[in-house]
């Protein structure tokens, strides 16, 4: 796309002069400069005023006194540098410890989450009991009481363990505490 002189001058004060254009864009600029006298004069003026003087600039040598001063400060500051090294070591150690703490915390969170998933909450247990499981438990209880009634009537051993309380009521054992809890 052909560029106007305004756009061209932006390139002439930056990308073109600094060799930052790709080959295609550079070709466009060269083509424009071949036909536009004003832009060509502008480019020459920019080079003369803002580029060429720097081309001959040389490195300046740092005075020897600078190194002497740096060395003197480093000599004076040996104690400070040792403290600095120790501080860096402590920072690294602390960084490692932080990683260990983070890993341990994560392990605890995973453990708690696993326990919560394995043991259903009281609310969900109640919800389950209020629905289909109630029927099953009801049937089971009825069966146990029938067995006790049979035992009372016949003096025979019931298939279910049962203890007679002081008031004559019967408390029924359904198994271990955990089993009772889960039921």
């Amino acid at each position, binding site marked *: 796309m052909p560029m106007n002189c305004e756009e061209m001058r932006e390139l002439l004060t930056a990308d073109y002069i600094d060799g930052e254009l790709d080959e295609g864009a550079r070709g466009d600029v060269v083509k424009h400069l071949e036909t536009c006298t004003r832009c060509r004069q502008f480019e020459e003026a920019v080079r003369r005023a803002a580029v060429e003087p*720097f081309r001959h600039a040389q490195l300046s040598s740092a005075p020897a006194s600078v190194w002497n001063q740096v060395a003197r400060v480093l000599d004076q500051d040996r104690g400070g540098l040792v403290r600095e090294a120790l501080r860096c070591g402590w920072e690294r150690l602390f960084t490692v410890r932080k990683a260990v703490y983070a890993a341990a915390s994560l392990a605890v969170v995973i453990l708690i989450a696993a326990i919560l998933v394995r043991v259903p909450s009281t609310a969900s247990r109640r919800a389950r009991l209020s629905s289909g499981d109630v029927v099953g438990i009801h049937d089971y209880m009825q069966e146990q009481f029938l067995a006790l009634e049979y035992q009372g009537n016949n003096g025979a051993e019931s298939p279910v363990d049962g203890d007679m309380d002081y008031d004559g009521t019967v408390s029924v054992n359904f198994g271990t505490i955990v089993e009772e809890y889960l039921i």
Partner: protein
Amino acid sequence: MQALPREILIAASEGNRSAFEKIYRATCDYVYTIALKVTGNRADAEEVTQDVFLKIFRELKRFRFASSFTTWLYRVTINSALNATRKTRRQRMGQVEYNDAIAVGDGRSATHDAIEREHNVARVSAMLEALNPDQRACIVLREIEGLRYKEIADVLKIPINTVRSRLQRAREALLAREQHGEG
């Protein structure tokens, strides 16, 4: 500025003074030249150079080679030089304090080439004086250090477009300066 061997950097980062001195010898003239061009005076340039190397020595142990050492060194140098420039806020319009410029006075022993070179040094310093510190930093990195736009953007931690626009404004200012007969 050439890249330094990694083993020298590592040795210096572990507090090896000999390795650090090698780094200093290889880079001090670049650091001093940038400081001199940006601050515009020898006293500040010497102080900046000293501060840069003390900072490098202290911070090298934290250097993780995520960016190149030279980019980091340029960044520390430019930032220190800009801070020094802003801090001192010297009003030295047109005043030139460079060693080399002072040496021009002794015309008896100077050859024609030497006079020409010193004249150019004085001219460059006067040109840089005409720019604001941010433009000056970009021009020094581009014209004197020969960095690409991407490298300048990395050193100054600014977008490439900002590098481009600062260079454009700087060159327009230098062109205007010459057209007003101040070249």
